[in-house]
């Protein structure tokens, strides 16, 4: 089977390959499952404003809605804001899997209290809105900011600073567990 991933911002080809590789390994996909990432060709570079998110959603919808015709078996708008997820569920007759929606549901199966770790504080409101929309507000105990930068993630350069990312994640994750009582973490 083939799954199509669609990037919510304009990134390098290298970032697409890195996501394919990272997902393939961490998810333990079957040998006969392929995941293929494409970038949106127009749209924002960052997602810090509602307007940028709207621009992103529009372009993700245009790109992802081709998936069924292209012969894919499922499509993944690959951003933690789940861009265009519901619109795509209307348009397509193949499964549409949204990262935040799936993570929240899985977290709810694994534990009782969820903390979501995000990169920057501008993202808090988007996550809060989605959590409310999905009806998980009682299970999310906190949304914490890691301050991991786009540079460290290597979106543009393709070079990821894994040590810096790990250090920040552990620092903030520990707080979520010890201070907020979280028993499952979602790294958004």
């Amino acid at each position, binding site marked *: 089977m083939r799954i199509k991933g669609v990037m919510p911002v304009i990134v390098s080809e290298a970032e697409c390959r890195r996501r394919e590789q990272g997902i393939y390994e961490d998810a333990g996909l079957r040998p006969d499952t392929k995941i293929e990432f494409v970038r949106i060709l127009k749209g924002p570079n960052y997602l810090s404003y509602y307007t940028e998110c709207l621009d992103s959603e529009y372009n993700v919808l245009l790109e992802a809605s081709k998936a069924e015709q292209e012969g894919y078996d499922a499509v993944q708008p690959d951003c933690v804001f789940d861009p265009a997820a519901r619109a795509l569920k209307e348009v397509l007759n193949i499964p549409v899997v949204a990262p935040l929606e799936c993570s929240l549901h*899985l977290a709810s*199966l*694994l*534990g009782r209290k969820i903390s979501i770790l995000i990169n920057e504080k501008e993202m808090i409101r988007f996550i809060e809105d989605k959590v409310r929309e999905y009806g998980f507000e009682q299970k999310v105990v906190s949304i914490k900011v890691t301050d991991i930068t786009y540079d460290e993630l290597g979106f543009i350069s393709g070079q990821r600073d894994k040590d810096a990312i790990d250090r920040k994640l552990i620092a903030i994750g520990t707080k979520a567990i010890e201070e907020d009582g*979280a*028993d*499952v973490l979602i790294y958004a």
Partner: protein
Amino acid sequence: MKIKGITPVVVPLQECRVREEGIYQDAGLRKDTQIEFVSIPEGPSYLQFYGENLISEYNVYREGIKAENEGYSAVQPDCIFDPALKPLKEALNIPVVGPLECAVHIASLLGRKFSILVNDGSMVKFIEERIREYGFEKKLASVRVSGVTFEELGFSTKKDNESIKKKLLIAGKKAIEEDNADVIILACTSMFGFKELFMQEYGVPTLEPGVIAAKMGEMLVDLGLKQSKKAFPAFNHKIFPDKTEDISQKENSVAGTSCAFLGPKKG
């Protein structure tokens, strides 16, 4: 990988084979995934009362906790009431998948409001309580009674799939048209072959919870995930003795002596 399923009532071997076969086919499990069912060795034959459920949970727990030592990768208490689900999550270090818990989460991913079709009226309260416990009451459109009987389910005889189908269609149609459900959950883990029941006419997916749980078990193992040990910590003392001891036979038996919970001793 091997997944262990446990029936919540005492059933003949034949029913275990029916569940293994049904789940394997409907879930599209991988070639290297095996699902093996055992019946609880003792316990109730029906689950219509809280008391029966309590006895069922106790026996499912005792059978379930062996799974890790037996080399299984995941364990599935295979009843729609998710017997002993949370105790097993504490006791084990492998994923524990509850059919109802998994089904409501998948239903919530696929639609906006789901209806649950139960066999008989006695099941409604158990389902309602679980849904509240899992925090999904706002997404529950209704719990509808289909009237499917134990005889039709054929635990010890032959399943009457045609008759089951007819009853599910009537109850499901009402759930979709009158209660606005957009996903249907079949509340019995012994039902297979009904995934497409409401798809063509209504575009509504039908979830078979035993199937969903097994596939979730396979997925969690693939992802290297299991229940949070902060949420479900393992206790380090023994609460279930290996053999049931009759404490009344013991010297200085506690029976008859006063207990702090009962208040101060009189006189």
